[in-house]
C-alpha cells in the first residue's frame, strides 16, 4: 500500500509535468489539488469555466469573497493579470481549443481515450453533467487524475467504458496512484511506474495488454 501515491503526492506528480506558461483547467474535486503543488516560480495560468483566467489559491479565512468562486463553487482568489468574462466566452475559450490542458477525474477511461466521469448510470441518480462534456473535448491535452482501482477493486482503465460517456477519444494521459499511462493508438502505454509496481501487476489489475514506453524503461 505504501508504494501507491497518496492524493497529494499524485497532485505533485501531475503538477511537475505542467510547463511554465501553460493555460490549465483543473475541473472540480481532486484535480484542483494540483494548483497547490505547482513548482514555485512557474507561472501556470488557471482557467475556471465560470469566467476567469488567472485564478489564485483559496483565500485566508475571513477574506472569502462569495463573488469569487471556482467551478466547484469554492472560494478562490484573483492573481495580478487575472481577467473575467462571461460563460459563453469562457466555454468558447475551451471549445475553441485555447487551453493547453484540462485535468479531470474519472470513473472509467477506455484504451481509446474515451472518458466516463459524469454518471454511473445508476437508475435512481439525479443526472448532472455541468461542464464535464465541454471540458472533455476542450483542451489540447486532457489528463485524468485518479486511483487506478475503484473502492471495489475494479480497474478504472478499461477496454470499453461501461458507464455513460463524457467524451469520445479525448483523454491523452492518465495519472494514477500506481502508474502514469499514455493513451496511444495501440492502447494504454505505461509511462512511469510508482514504487515497486511492475508492468505485470498492472496487467493483472487492469486486464489490459499494456505496453511500456521506452521512456519508462529508462526512468526505472
Amino acid at each position, binding site marked *: 500500500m505504501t508504494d501507491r501515491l497518496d492524493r497529494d503526492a499524485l497532485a505533485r506528480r501531475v503538477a511537475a509535468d505542467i510547463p511554465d506558461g501553460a493555460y490549465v483547467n483543473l475541473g472540480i474535486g481532486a484535480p*484542483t489539488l494540483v494548483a497547490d503543488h505547482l513548482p514555485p516560480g512557474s507561472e501556470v495560468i488557471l482557467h*475556471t*469555466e*465560470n*469566467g*476567469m483566467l488567472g485564478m489564485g489559491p*483559496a483565500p485566508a*479565512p*475571513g*477574506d*472569502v*469573497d*462569495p*463573488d*469569487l*468562486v*471556482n467551478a466547484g*463553487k*469554492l*472560494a478562490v482568489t*484573483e492573481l495580478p493579470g487575472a481577467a*473575467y*468574462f*462571461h*460563460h*459563453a466566452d*469562457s*466555454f*468558447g475559450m*475551451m*471549445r475553441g481549443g485555447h487551453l493547453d490542458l484540462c485535468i479531470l477525474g474519472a470513473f472509467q477511461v477506455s484504451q481509446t481515450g*474515451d472518458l466516463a466521469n459524469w*454518471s454511473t448510470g445508476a437508475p435512481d441518480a*439525479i*443526472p*448532472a*453533467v*455541468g*461542464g*464535464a*462534456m*465541454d471540458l472533455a*473535448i*476542450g483542451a489540447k491535452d486532457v489528463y485524468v487524475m485518479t486511483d487506478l482501482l475503484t473502492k471495489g477493486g475494479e480497474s478504472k482503465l478499461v477496454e470499453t467504458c461501461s458507464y*455513460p*460517456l*463524457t*467524451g*469520445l477519444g479525448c483523454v491523452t494521459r492518465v495519472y494514477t496512484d500506481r502508474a502514469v499511462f499514455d493513451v496511444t493508438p495501440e492502447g494504454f502505454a505505461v509511462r512511469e511506474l510508482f514504487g515497486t509496481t511492475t508492468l505485470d501487476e498492472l496487467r493483472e489489475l487492469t486486464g489490459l495488454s499494456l505496453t511500456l514506453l521506452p521512456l519508462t524503461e529508462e526512468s526505472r
Partner: protein
Amino acid sequence: MIDKTVADLREAVAGIADGATVMVGGFGRAGQPVELIDALIDAGASELTIVSNNAGGGDLGLARLIAEGRVRKVVCSFPRQTDSWHFDRAYREGRLELELVPQGNLAERIRAAGAGIGAFYSPTAVGTPLAEGREHREIDGRTYLLEHPIRADVTLISGLRADRWGNVVYRRTARNFAPIMATAARTTVVQVDEIVPLGALDPEAIVTPGIFVDRVVAVGGRRWLRDGAFVGGVDLQGEPLAAPTAELATAQTAGGDR
C-alpha cells in the same frame, strides 16, 4: 428621457405570468439574483420553466422557488449539489421535469438566442447519452451536434452597478451567465447594488449595454455584505465560508474600483 430604473422589487418582477420561461443568472450563489427571486415568489407566478446553470442550493433563492412549488421544469447543467435538497425532493417525487444541457452548450444556446443565430453545430456531447436522437454532422472530419437557441420570456440577473440606460457592470465571477441571459429574453430585469449617474460607468468596461435591459432595481449592498446574513458556500476543505471581514465589505461596496 430614458429611465429603466424601477422603484422596488415588486415593480421589477411585475407581469411575469404563470407558465413563463424565466432565465436566472448565477453560478451556485455567485451572481444569483436572490432578491429578484424572492420578489418573484411574492408575486405568485407558478408553473415556471427555469433556465439556470444550477437548480438552487440551501433554502433560498432558486431553491426556495422550487420548494414553494412554483417550478414545472428546470433547464440546467448541474442540478445536483450537496445542498440541493429542494430540487432533489421535487425531482424524485416527479413534481418537476429536468432538461439536462452541458454547461457550454447551455451558454452558447443562450447566446445564440440573443444573437439571432438559427442553430449551430457543437462538438460537445458527441458520443454521449445526451447526443441520442440528435442531428449529427461531420464538418472537416469532426462530428458535431446541432444545437438550437434557448429563449426566455424574462431574465432575472444580478449586477454590481447600472445606470438609467440599463448599462451594467458585474463583479468578479458573479458575472457568469448574466451577460448572455440579458440578451435572450423578451424582458430583462437586473438587480444591482447601486444605480449610478449616466456617464459614471466607463464605456470601455460596460459588459451589458442597456439595449438588452428593460428594468433595473437597486437592492443595496447584497445581503451577505449588508446585514451579515451571509449565505456563501464552502471553502476548499469543505468548511462553510466565513462572512467577509468588515474591511473587505467596506472596500467592496464603497464605490471603489470594483
